[in-house]
């Protein structure tokens, strides 16, 4: 008996005459399941949640012809109303802070709160990118210190820090490759991308002006080296390989691939989205690659924020370093640090392919990632990779008797376990398992990706999950597989317990409603 309730009194529930609770309420809310209108339905014109002094004087006379006819038609909320609006909305989101979020390839690991605290130090959060360099030595110091870690951890020569996300990093790497090839007067037109690649790879290659050709996978889920070698030639600029790949497997023959590509005059881009599986255990530089982006929001725990911001620094080989974008962070021999910008580039970084974005990159992500790296140290980062791989293999071996694991028979996986819909009975799909997981209180795994596996389910637990947490997840997955085997019709219409049931995506795409037009238009 609890010390807080020594009498043992309990409220009576379900006694004689008790009326079943209403499923519909007058408010539309149900206990802690709260509905929330749009700000355009809540707000009133003229309401303002910020106290702003009324400015003295009229606008400059010359401005008169440019003045807007009326204020923007945006309703305002006072602070208490705004705090409630966003807090109520937040409760309709699943998040890592609530439980496992095993989205394969997305690496949803815990976001340490120390990272947040450090990023908010005024010396980082409240400095302008164009302040004189003498007033931002510490900020530049963060960039250089992080850069040194990334170079050392990957065994590469240098790093371009400015790309703003993984796909932007891919672009950076390909532009370096293109600039390097052009510099040697070698115009090549084709980029080879394996079938299992992230969609960003072919999109990036096309964006950089290349023709994309696909390379098949072998039955064991890896790049078909024979097909790759057969396609290499004087028109192939680069090969983009994800390693570990999107099937959760290490490309064993990466060095052979690199050597073959180099022998044919091409360059090797490695998609480093899955670097978290090997950090501290493998240096990609030892595998002969020329460029690799690192998603700081994956391997180094900066928050995903419901879709960004990310950060995608690109480590480079010596051959590609001269072409890195501006600004380029450099530590000099006497220990001082500086950013090479347009002013000094002609003398000090003359072959740079140019600028990819305004300013210096995602500083707010750099402070978080550096904080994470310093917290773990070289030993902790190696342990991160080991625990991530251990957790994924534990999931793989705990589920491969009830779900088909197409590449699980031949050996271990890396940081993510891949299943197919092969063992699901007729009428049940990967989507049903995913939606069933929502009712079980988990975020679904990545589904229908990679494309090389039918009905793919890609589970990435990350090092964040405890064994007890994994056991709960495994129990739910086994239960869902059993419900599918038993043809449980309620699984077909899951989720039943989320803030919304399945949403009509066809309607959304057929008649797009992208902004609010008032309820009359509904």
């Amino acid at each position, binding site marked *: 008996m609890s010390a807080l309730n020594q009498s043992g009194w309990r409220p009576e529930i379900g006694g004689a005459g008790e009326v079943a609770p209403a499923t519909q309420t007058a408010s539309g809310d149900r206990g802690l399941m709260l509905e929330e209108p749009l*700000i355009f339905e809540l707000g009133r014109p003229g309401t303002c949640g910020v106290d702003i002094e009324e400015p003295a*004087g009229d606008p400059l006379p010359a401005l008169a012809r440019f*003045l*807007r006819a009326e204020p923007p038609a945006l309703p305002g909320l006072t602070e208490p109303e705004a705090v409630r609006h*966003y807090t109520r909305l937040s409760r309709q989101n699943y998040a890592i802070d609530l439980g496992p979020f095993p989205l394969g390839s997305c690496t949803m690991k815990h976001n340490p709160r120390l990272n947040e605290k450090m990023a908010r130090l005024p010396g980082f959060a409240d400095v*302008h990118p164009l302040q004189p360099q003498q007033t931002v030595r510490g900020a530049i110091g963060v960039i250089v210190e992080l850069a040194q870690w990334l170079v050392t951890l990957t065994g590469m020569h240098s790093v371009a820090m400015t790309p703003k996300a993984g796909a932007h990093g891919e672009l950076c790497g390909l532009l370096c490759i293109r600039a390097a090839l052009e510099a040697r007067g070698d115009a090549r037109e084709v980029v080879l991308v394996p079938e299992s690649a992230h969609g960003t790879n072919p*999109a990036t290659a096309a964006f950089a002006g290349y023709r994309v050709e696909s390379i098949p996978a072998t039955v064991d889920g890896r790049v078909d080296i024979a097909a790759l070698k057969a396609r290499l030639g004087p028109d192939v600029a680069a090969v983009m390989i994800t390693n570990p790949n999107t099937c959760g497997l290490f490309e064993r023959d990466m060095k052979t691939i690199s050597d073959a590509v180099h022998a044919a005059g091409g360059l090797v881009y490695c998609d480093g989205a899955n670097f978290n599986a090997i950090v501290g255990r493998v240096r990609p530089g030892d595998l002969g690659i020329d460029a690799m982006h690192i998603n700081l929001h994956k391997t180094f725990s900066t928050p995903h924020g419901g879709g960004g911001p990310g950060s995608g620094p690109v480590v480079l080989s010596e051959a590609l370093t001269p072409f890195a974008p501006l600004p380029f962070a450099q530590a000099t021999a006497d220990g001082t640090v500086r950013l090479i910008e347009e002013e000094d580039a002609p003398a000090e970084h003359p072959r740079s392919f140019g600028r*990819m974005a305004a300013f210096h990159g995602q500083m707010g992500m750099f402070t978080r990632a550096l904080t994470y790296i310093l917290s773990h140290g070289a030993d902790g980062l190696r342990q991160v990779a080991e625990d991530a791989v251990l957790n994924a293999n534990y999931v793989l071996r705990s589920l491969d008797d009830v779900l088909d694991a197409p590449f699980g028979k031949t050996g271990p996986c890396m940081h993510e376990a891949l299943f197919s819909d092969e063992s699901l009975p007729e009428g049940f799909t990967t989507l049903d398992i995913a939606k069933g997981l929502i009712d079980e209180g988990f975020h679904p795994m990545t589904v229908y990706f990679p494309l090389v596996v039918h009905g793919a389910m890609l589970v990435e637990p990350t090092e964040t999950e405890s064994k007890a947490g994994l056991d709960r997840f495994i129990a739910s997955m086994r239960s869902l597989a059993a419900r599918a085997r038993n043809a449980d019709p309620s699984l077909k219409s899951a989720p039943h317990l989320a803030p919304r049931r399945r949403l009509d995506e066809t309607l959304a795409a057929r008649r797009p409603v992208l902004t609010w037009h008032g309820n009359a238009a509904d």
Partner: protein
Amino acid sequence: MRYLPLTPAERADMLRTIGAASIDELFVDVPPEARLDGPIAGLPGHASEMAVERHMARLAADNLSAGSAPFFLGAGAYRHHIPASVDHLIQRGEFLTAYTPYQPEIAQGTLQVLFEFQTQVARLFGTDIANASMYDGSTACWEAVAMAGRITRRKKAILSGGLHPHYVSTATTMARFTGDALDTRLPELSAEPDDAALIAAIDGETSCVVVQYPDVLGRIPDLAAIAAAAQAQGALLVAVVTEPVALGLIEAPGKLGADIVVGEGQSLGVGLQFGGPYLGLFGCREKFVRQMPGRLAGQTVDADGKRGFVLTLSTREQHIRREKATSNICTNSGLCALDFSIHMTLLGGEGLARLARLNHARARATAEALTRVPGVELLSMCFVNELTLLLPRDAREVVRELAEYGVLGGVSLGRLYPQADGLHHALLVTATETTTDDDIHALATILEAILVDTHEGAPT
């Protein structure tokens, strides 16, 4: 290690379940020559919160933060007061630690925020629609140029001299690889932007004209005239807004005929952060929706008929279309969009208008004080909160000397255009609601002292 829940006993237990003798067996696919036997030499080991905090705080202290000095920088990044509730709300774990909303049943919070954000941006810009964000203003600007090329099937874009030089550089980098032709020019130090020259450059090959509003020197181009001229040739007007607060005072670009409006949303809610992460804003006419880059949240209903939101029209995007996608963008700037949206919600349209008038009043006060400094001239009498001063010498040196006195006095055009000697005596000065009379006094006094030294030929 405080972030790793597995115990050594659990690790051993799990290895037994897997059927592996050691963790090394799980890395068996790594070729022996690439395996590292232990932690990489020369790197420090793990550290406590306290130790890390001490290290980071030392680095942070080696910066002069904007809030601790008279501060007048702008040029694409602006310091505004951010209400306390904004940063509190974005740190709700349900927003901070969620992913892109691929599972809409459990991501309605993020999706509704994005739908509200899109509506706010569209109304602010005067466009039909807006997307769920891009990386930043400079990349959004290039994406607009690329989109105009897809719509018009033309390859030549004209970039105004008033477009932020980093935006021009970003587009130039991309165009070199995509084969687009960019017609670029430097800004002229004149009281009004040379709209006539821009209009004269438009021809039947032009895909779009890209015009910053207000421009990088703080002047205001005549968007309506440029839009009419562009559209008469079958070209599009892309308007670029780097300071959205200005739109509380001056007319929305979409209302003036801009076909695509992009911008940098950092001013509202995001903060300076030494340049990133920032927030790309992207609005356009509804008829162009299928050529738009980036994510879109759209309204729909669920199986019970309840209103809900999903990511939609994703057949434009890389994860479906691969090499045929409208852009390679995947992760965007979701959390910064939330910052922006909360700040905008707190302001409301009338609050934004008042904030813009206050910014303008502070800039007028700054201009009045600085033009009393001997040797200083004001370029234009038509500005919102950012203005260009002409100094008697290279503004880069002046900025560095001001910093020696603890004053962050502005952005020199030499920093932005190092290769254009004719611009080096110009200084961009921005005032916002955070600018106090004391700040203005400090800048005016020290600027005068520095320039007097110049007149007297004193060495610096």
